[in-house]
């Protein structure tokens, strides 16, 4: 529990200090996560700032960030802990002729343990923020690995016993929703759906990330991006893409969002040719000049 946070607005303010603009809902969920000691599962389209929420939380609270990047085929040995076989073998060879009883206890002790992110977060002396990124990439069966950590913040190692966290880590899981996560996992988490930001919030993000951008232009860009997102495309522009777009327009010295300017720079925002064509048609833009193609 973070003593300096007494209301969700405190959370919002301290996140804003490190450059993350949280809306009221995100601030409230982060506040609840802190108070109830529960993990947050952040789900939403790619590029809306789910991972950076965890980074910002770590920075705002001054905690160390432990990150577990999930991928297909992630297993216990990569997520929790592993015995250091090489070292154990060396130990055994160094001590030939020693009593088995002595050795057994010896080679299964902490000095032969390789900690992986989950165990590291649990064993850490000082409080940490644990980020489990893209949890939807691991298989359904592997999710079970996470459950013990998520609900009681402990890891059981058969040879050693149970390691319990000395201070409750703040846990953020992110998912791009490529598959349905299990009920068991969802039940243990607070659920935070992170949609694309509202026009107002996106404008504020642009202002913070591209400080040189004139305010009128920032507002226009935010509105235009919102309109483009409303058009069904294969890949809607993410926040980072709209920041790139703002930087591009600024670098090109374009001060007004004219049709030609949009048409020439649309490829910064959209990454599929079919999307670019579709949006150009919807917005009745002129043919892009050759710079775009």
């Amino acid at each position, binding site marked *: 529990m973070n003593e300096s946070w007494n*209301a*969700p607005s405190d959370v919002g303010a301290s996140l804003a200090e490190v450059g993350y603009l949280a809306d*009221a*809902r995100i601030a*409230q*969920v982060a*506040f*609840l996560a802190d*108070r*109830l000691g*529960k993990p947050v*599962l952040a*789900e*939403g389209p790619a590029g809306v700032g789910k991972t950076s929420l965890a980074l910002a939380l770590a920075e705002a609270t001054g905690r160390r960030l432990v990150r577990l990047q999930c991928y*297909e*085929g992630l297993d216990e040995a990569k997520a929790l802990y592993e015995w250091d*076989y*090489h070292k154990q*073998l060396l130990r055994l*060879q160094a001590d030939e002729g020693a009593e088995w009883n002595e050795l057994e206890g010896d080679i299964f002790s902490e000095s032969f343990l390789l900690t992986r992110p989950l165990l590291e977060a649990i064993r850490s002396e000082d409080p940490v923020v644990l980020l489990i990124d893209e949890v939807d990439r691991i*298989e359904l069966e592997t999710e079970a690995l996470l459950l013990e950590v998520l609900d009681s913040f402990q890891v059981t190692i058969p040879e050693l016993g149970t390691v319990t966290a000395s201070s409750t880590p703040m846990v953020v899981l992110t998912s791009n*929703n*490529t*598959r*349905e996560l299990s*009920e068991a996992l*969802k*039940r243990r*988490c*607070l*659920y*935070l*759906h992170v949609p694309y930001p509202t026009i107002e919030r996106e404008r504020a993000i642009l202002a913070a990330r591209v400080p040189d951008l004139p305010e009128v232009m920032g507002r*226009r860009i935010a*509105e*235009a991006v*919102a*309109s483009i997102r*409303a058009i*069904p495309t294969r890949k809607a522009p993410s926040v980072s893409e709209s920041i790139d777009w703002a930087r591009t327009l600024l670098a090109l010295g374009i001060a*007004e*969002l*004219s*049709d030609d300017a*949009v048409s020439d720079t649309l490829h910064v925002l959209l990454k*599929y*040719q*079919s999307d670019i*064509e*579709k949006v150009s048609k*919807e*917005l*009745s*833009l002129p043919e892009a000049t050759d710079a775009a193609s």
Partner: protein
Amino acid sequence: MNSTLSAFVDELRATGVPVSMVEALDAANALQYTDLTDRENLRASLGATLVKNPRHYRTFDAVFDVFFTARAMPGGEDDVAPPDVDALRDALLDAILEGDMEAMRRLVGQAVSQFAGMQPGRPVGGRYYTYRVMRQLDADDLTLRLLAALAVIDADSGVEERIRRDRVESMIASLRQAVDEDVTSRLVDERGAEQVAATRRVPLLEDIDLMHATRLEIAEIERAVGPLARRLATRLSQRRRHGRRGRLDVRRTIRHSLGHGGVLIDPQFKPPKVTKPEIVVLCDVSGSMATFARFTLQLTYAISSELSKVRSFAFIDGLDEVTRFFGTDTDFGDALMNMSAEASLVRRDGHSDYGRSFEEFAEKFSEAITPRTTLIVTGDARNNYRPTGVDSFAEITRRARTTFWLNPESRSYWDTGDSVMSVYSPHCDRVEQVRSLRQLERFVELAAVPRSSAVPIPA
């Protein structure tokens, strides 16, 4: 608060949102750290603890709005004489343009008192009242006036124009929402939240009947089909990579053992030999199937951008391959249009003819079916009393690895009238009724799990 909360949870469960005991307790705990006077704060707390699926937020919001209504603004009803419609609309227009939400709510309150014609005691959901108020306020005319008021400098710019239209659209949407909230809070005052919630239950997106969905609902469902297809493709390919271990790889095992002083501690396995799944879709796109065909085609389209070997065929009373229209870099809407313009699907009168279509498929495209093919047929099997061509169908399915038939009609209507489902079903591995997203999802799960006998044994 706790009794309200438990009634709220009951209502969520009644609409089909799965809320477990633990989650209800979490919500109760979360309330300690929630500012109960702030409606959005409360919405965030309850949403985070009770609803764990983004698709359920639609339903959650509807229930929340009933249980925790935005209070109708007090005052403004008695102290001001009812203004005439035009004055009210002018005032409303100003409030919207200035973004003065409070003034807007007050004016909406007056409008509802005047125009909704609410009759106490009637067990209605209130949508009709909202509709009446919006009609009196003349939303179309308001839209035009807002567009005029937001006139832009550069009128030729397509981007500016689009932004302006979207802004006006969202203004009108927020007006409609304010009216709806006002009506709801009046209904709740009269009959209590539980009663009102029960009369205006919004089904979950996955339970909406595809055949009777509204245009808006269809748009929402279509957005959900994309992720569904991606999930299907991911599952299929995951099973390919991790389904089973291959044989021991002696060479690599020995190579690895060198690191352990020659102890064979870490056995290595050859990756299993697997065949890529091939999918062939046969889709009835006749008039009666139009809505459903959109979904199957969209699902196919989405799968084909994830898996390489997908071929799709459409038929009415003639059959043609339509794979080329659904390439990876085409837009789905365009693809549909090109398909109806260019593919020859109608030979005679434009009524479904399954027999003829199956015969045509067996004749022209039988090479598309291999022992690795999963064949998916979608259609209602309403054959207009024509020959069934069951021999051709049997021949096709015999050559395919698995055959699924998705029928969007309710099971009880199968084999009534001109439906000949039972003629075809013995030749299918599975016949499923699919008339909602939930059923489509279940089918996807099912299709992703290969039958054990069908898994090729590594050579």
